[in-house]
């Protein structure tokens, strides 16, 4: 399911709209994931506060979103572009890749909520394809 030129354009176009609400998107996605999929809290047991909207959640939400923007910049070669991030997830964080799908779903819900007009079915398709490729690239170094 390779990204076509049209997909890449749609992703880049939508990302530029997202930039005005990055912090909100990041915080909301992460908060939501921790509530709707409580098993994901197991990766953050070392945080003092896992409540939605708490300081650690907000800060980390920004880190996640910046990762997505970084991936968008490297959209033409995600596998090589995200090697370092993949090593981080594979050897240090050891997040089960099943959780990438969970995170992606939460992000799509938040994008639909915050951009009801712009998140059209065609944009949804392109962003979903892109994020699935990102997840694949992140899992590259796992085994």
């Amino acid at each position, binding site marked *: 399911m390779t990204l076509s030129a049209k997909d890449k354009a749609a992703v880049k176009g939508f990302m530029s709209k997202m930039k005005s609400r990055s912090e909100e998107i990041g915080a909301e996605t992460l908060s939501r994931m921790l509530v*709707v999929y409580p098993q994901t809290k197991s990766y953050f047991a070392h945080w003092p506060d896992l409540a939605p909207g708490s300081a650690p959640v907000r800060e980390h939400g920004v880190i996640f979103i910046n990762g997505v923007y970084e991936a968008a910049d490297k959209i033409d070669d995600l596998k090589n572009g995200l090697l370092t991030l993949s090593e981080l997830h594979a050897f240090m964080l050891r997040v089960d890749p099943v959780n990438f799908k969970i995170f992606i*779903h939460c992000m799509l*819900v938040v994008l639909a*909520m915050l951009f009801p007009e712009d998140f059209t079915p065609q944009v*949804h398709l392109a962003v*979903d394809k892109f994020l699935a490729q990102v997840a694949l690239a992140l899992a590259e170094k796992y085994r």
Partner: protein
Amino acid sequence: MVEWTDFERSTIESIFSKMDYEDVGPAALCRCLVVYPWTQRYFGNFGNLYNAAAIMSNKMVAQHGITVLHGMDRAVKNMDNIKATYAELSVLHSEKLHVDPDNFKLLGDILTIVVAARMGTDFTAEVQAAFQKFLAIVISSLGRQYH
């Protein structure tokens, strides 16, 4: 036996009582056919599904979206026994329609996203959790009679 909290019950009832079926039904089915194009395999006789624009203006798709959404009414009215309520529908999907049950999850995810877009910030994390729990049970019940 599924346990529902008061919050979950009232959330599900509220979502469906406020829902505009003529809007959400078509939007959800169209989006599913666009985002997961392989689901189009079940709609061979629906006419032109060649691109997103065609899908979104297709009247048969719109009508069917409304039908599917109303199919959930039975579950909303019988939240304590969705499994039995859907036994017949499950047989229909398996024996007559031959729908791969994995597709139920795809439509469920799309429906969550469409409802989120309509409800905006009212679609809190807790509301999402309740809605997804309801959908998971509907999906499981629909897949139960497959053999």
